[in-house]
């Protein structure tokens, strides 16, 4: 096995396979239309080919690994609304705050889904005493509507089944009559497990805990409605409608059902959204129109191509054949990076794009270090094969040390552990991520691929010359 890798031709073969695979991933959707009439002597039929190629989806391991391989555009490129909300937790007990934030997130997600926004992201951020939610809605430009929808406090209320009127004919859902019991009376919902050891105790249940007023109201409701359903509504949508088994006197209700643990957790989150209502205020809001971003992308991509061409010209001009080989590695670098962006997937923002373009310039750094070393070794009259291997070998320390520093910076900028004392800005993260990915990929293409390209092609071309 080790021998296999020692033969640079084998390594190159693997690299070629990788490149072919990467190109498959990179290919955007291109329509291919062929409409060609064969000459008479060949039968005169028309050949028609009209299909889209590229834009493939990844489907592997029986669907366990699935990727829609299109570039995810950040909000600054796609256009849309981004809102940073801060939750006012002053009325919530410390221990319940994390739950309340999750419930708030859940509520906002449900509302966003109701708006029919497909490209939406709702994230929570809990740093020291600040509970925040970042909502990003791509393709939404009506900020007014978006804000009024997501900014409201969740409304939870209880309704009783009306057995007098027939249920809805199409859905079979019974009619429910509103009561005066609301989310304000619910203290907290939580997942509990069966206390009775003789029964199967692993089944999760949902416990509702009312405050004093709520307990009184709930007692009345349950006493009068045994055998009927009590529905719990969140934002006028039914969450759950259990049947009342017996009167609940102490304000502690248990809802049983064949819940899985995940189901129970989701329900509890939804119920808590009403039980722990959290007012929010807008801290930051950004709306980007649909054209601004795309224009910038087109310009930046053009700038990238111009820059890349200059770098390639420079490398070939300065280092000759070695520079040409490095340029091949650089193009592979670009292709691999793009494929990884699609695969991860990296959400591409404008600063991210700048990071990528910058990394192309930095990617040849390793090559330049190595080539300068080779030149130096040659000046010392060492034979070419030794100069080549020394050039690669001795530069490694410098390459490693130098890149580690950039990794440290990228780490701080990306702030992966969400440390409260460091910035967590989205665009900055986009830049840091593309920068860090760029370093790792360029170490691979700049050192390993170039080295094997040089081993195979550079030495051979010299041999034929002599």
């Amino acid at each position, binding site marked *: 096995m080790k021998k296999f890798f020692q033969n640079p031709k084998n390594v190159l073969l693997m690299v070629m396979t990788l490149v072919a695979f990467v190109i498959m991933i990179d290919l955007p959707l291109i329509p291919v239309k062929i409409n060609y009439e064969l000459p008479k002597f060949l039968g005169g039929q028309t050949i028609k080919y009209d299909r889209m190629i590229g834009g493939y989806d990844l489907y592997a391991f029986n669907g366990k690994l699935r990727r829609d391989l299109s570039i995810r555009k950040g909000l600054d490129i796609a256009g849309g609304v981004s809102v940073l909300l801060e939750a006012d937790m002053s009325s919530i007990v410390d221990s319940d705050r994390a739950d309340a934030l999750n419930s708030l997130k859940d509520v906002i997600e449900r509302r966003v889904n109701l708006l029919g926004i497909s490209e939406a992201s709702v994230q929570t951020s809990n740093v020291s005493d600040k509970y925040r939610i970042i909502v990003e809605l791509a393709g939404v430009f009506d900020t007014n509507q978006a804000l009024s929808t997501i900014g409201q406090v969740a409304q939870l209320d209880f309704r009783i089944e009306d057995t007098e009127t027939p249920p809805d004919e199409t859905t079979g859902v019974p009619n429910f009559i509103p009561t005066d019991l609301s989310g304000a009376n619910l203290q907290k919902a939580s997942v509990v497990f069966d206390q009775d050891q003789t029964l199967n105790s692993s089944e999760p249940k949902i416990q509702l805990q009312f405050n004093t007023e709520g307990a009184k109201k709930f007692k009345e409701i349950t006493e009068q409605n045994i055998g009927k359903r009590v529905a719990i509504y969140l934002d006028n949508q039914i969450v759950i409608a259990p049947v009342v088994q017996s009167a609940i006197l102490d304000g502690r209700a248990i809802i049983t059902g064949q819940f899985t643990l995940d189901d129970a957790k989701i329900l509890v989150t939804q119920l808590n959204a009403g039980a722990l209502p959290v007012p929010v205020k807008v801290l*930051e809001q*950004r709306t980007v129109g649909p054209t601004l971003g795309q224009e910038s992308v087109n*310009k930046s991509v053009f700038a990238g191509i111009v820059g890349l061409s200059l770098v390639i010209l420079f490398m070939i001009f300065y280092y000759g054949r070695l520079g040409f080989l490095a340029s091949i590695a650089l193009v592979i670098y670009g292709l691999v990076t793009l494929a990884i962006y699609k695969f991860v997937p990296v959400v591409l923002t404008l600063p991210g794009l700048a990071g990528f373009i910058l990394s192309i310039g930095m990617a040849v750094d390793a090559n330049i270090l190595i080539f300068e070393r080779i030149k130096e070794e040659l000046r010392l009259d060492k034979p070419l094969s030794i100069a080549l291997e020394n050039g690669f070998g001795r530069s490694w320390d410098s390459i490693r040390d130098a890149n580690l520093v950039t990794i440290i910076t990228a780490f701080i900028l990306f702030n992966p552990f969400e440390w409260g004392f460091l910035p967590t800005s989205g665009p900055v993260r986009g830049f840091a991520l593309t920068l860090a990915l760029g370093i790792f990929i360029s170490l691979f293409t700049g050192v390993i691929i170039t080295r094997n390209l040089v081993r195979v092609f550079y030495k051979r071309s010299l041999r034929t010359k002599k």
Partner: protein
Amino acid sequence: MINFMKFRNLYFLISGIFLLASILSLIFWGLRPAIDFTGGALLEVTIENPEKIIATDDMETFVSEVSDVKINSIQSVSDTQNYILKLNNIDEAKKTEIISKLEEQYQTVTEIRFETVGPTLGKELLVKTAAAILIAAALILLYVAYQFKSRIYGMSAILAMLHDTLILVGSFAIFGRLAGVEIDTLFVTAVLTTLSFSVHDTIVVFDRIRESLKQSPNSKPVDLVNKAVTGTLSRSINNSMTIIFMLTALSLLGGISIKWFSVALLVGTVTGTYSSTFVAVPLLLVFLRNKKTF
């Protein structure tokens, strides 16, 4: 081998001039913080085929008729029909009012982007940014000191890094004065990238000094340093050239929103390259004068 270090006083003089210019422009002109730091609102609109010629002064008068709206500045974006209005922290309703006010005057007005940042958030970002820069500098110093088993190397690298940062920030005080360029989150990102780039380059030279030292431990420090600089200078310049190509292309041809970000990175790259050879290394020699050996 070229005796680079013969002219070390010249290098210090050049750096001194740039540093002085940076410090003076920072003191007298200062930086123009964007709403990321100050809080406030930014509204960009396109005004197509206006009924009358647009003067930003007139526009200011119209917009300030909307109650509770304070205008910090109105800029027209070159080569477009876009205008950027910097305002106090207003809400959606106020923004709609402003747009209808503009429509009254100029007919077709399209909103391109609208951003608001609360005042607390701005202050928070300022503190976090400072923390990020300090932590990055500390980690890099630790790494360099550990890697080279010597505080002298670390000190020289950090001083060169501060030199680059100061010149970068100073240059933006000048750009701010001449072209109204503002300091935003992306600028901070550029500063941090410059920190790492500056040290990245310095490490390559230092690595070479260390290697020469291993080969001939009895040479004079000046000779070792000259040898290392001779060995790394073309690499350093060539590498920076490729980065400069990319960044120049991006600054001149790239999108407006990342134009000044690219310029900041470009300034950082140029001074980072210069400082590795012509600030960090001479400093190393100065520190060494007090010591006989490395």
